[in-house]
């Protein structure tokens, strides 16, 4: 039973993510999480003013149910399947992060420096999370998909456009992780 509580190995996790995608294809749907962002905006009636949101979001209700299931899964995994041995990242990474003033995981998924309760009192912290979200939302809808739609589904279907998007994801990610993040966090 220990295996349930420890960090799941990459080969088990990767295989199961592939199965999730294939199951949705078998259900006649496409695996894509960022479509939900568009549907959520459309739900508010924004389609009357912006054509991009003028579509029948109710046809994507199944995807909201997938999201709801995923949220419950996240809750169960964090509250009932956690272990202090989790998130054992590379010690070099931990050393590097401490220079940026970012705390070590100690079994936690998210650093307090970015996601602790104190961030509600810091306009800089809120702006970082909001800005990151804007880049994600704008980028994923511009590129027409995110990690699930392009990196997993698109590459699995051997689509060249998805490879271009994934190359873009990595260029952006490397610039942020190596050059910009240290500017935001070096105290």
């Amino acid at each position, binding site marked *: 039973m220990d295996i349930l509580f420890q960090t799941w190995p990459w080969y*088990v996790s*990767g295989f199961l993510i592939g199965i999730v995608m294939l199951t949705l294809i078998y259900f006649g749907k496409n695996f894509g999480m960022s479509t939900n*962002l568009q549907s959520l905006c459309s739900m508010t009636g924004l389609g009357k003013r912006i054509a991009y949101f003028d579509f029948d979001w109710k046809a994507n209700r199944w995807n909201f149910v*997938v999201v709801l299931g995923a*949220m419950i899964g996240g809750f169960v995994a964090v509250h009932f399947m956690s272990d202090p041995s989790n998130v054992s990242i590379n010690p070099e990474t931990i050393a590097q992060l401490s220079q940026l003033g970012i705390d070590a995981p100690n079994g936690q998924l998210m650093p307090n420096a970015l996601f602790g309760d104190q961030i509600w009192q810091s306009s800089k912290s809120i702006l970082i999370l909001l800005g990151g979200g*804007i*880049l994600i939302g704008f980028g994923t809808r*511009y*590129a027409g998909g995110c990690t699930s739609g392009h990196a997993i589904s698109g590459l699995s279907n051997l689509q060249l456009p998805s490879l271009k998007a994934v190359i873009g994801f990595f260029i952006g*990610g490397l610039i942020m992780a190596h050059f910009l993040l240290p500017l935001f966090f070096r105290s």
Partner: protein
Amino acid sequence: MNVLKYLLVGFLFGIVLTKSEAVSWYRIYEMFQFQSFHMYGIIGVAVTTGIIGIQIIKRNNIKDIKGLPIEIQEKPKDNARYYIGGISFGLGWALVGSCPGPIFILIGAGFFPVIIVLIGALIGTVIYGALKSKLPH
């Protein structure tokens, strides 16, 4: 719509992404520093499983659950949108460590500051929707 089957697929997805720690900010940072194989292994095995599965579906003309032929949407053959949109996405992904799936999963798991990321992602979606006709694709 049979709600339960989508709920179960989502539940599995949420558990796997959390237990593999693909939802963890630390794992994303570590991946972009090339200091662990973990995330590359996950993505690599997921894509390999997907390629094999899709080939099996295509070669055997497997029908979906309703007996209809399975058609996987082709992505438009553009360039600018994938590189510019992709880079924007990557900048955000490495900053807050979560892509759209994990944003929802983490909120469900009780990491409420991630709600700010979700609000940002919705604002970003509206910005794209509003500017769509003026952007190169």
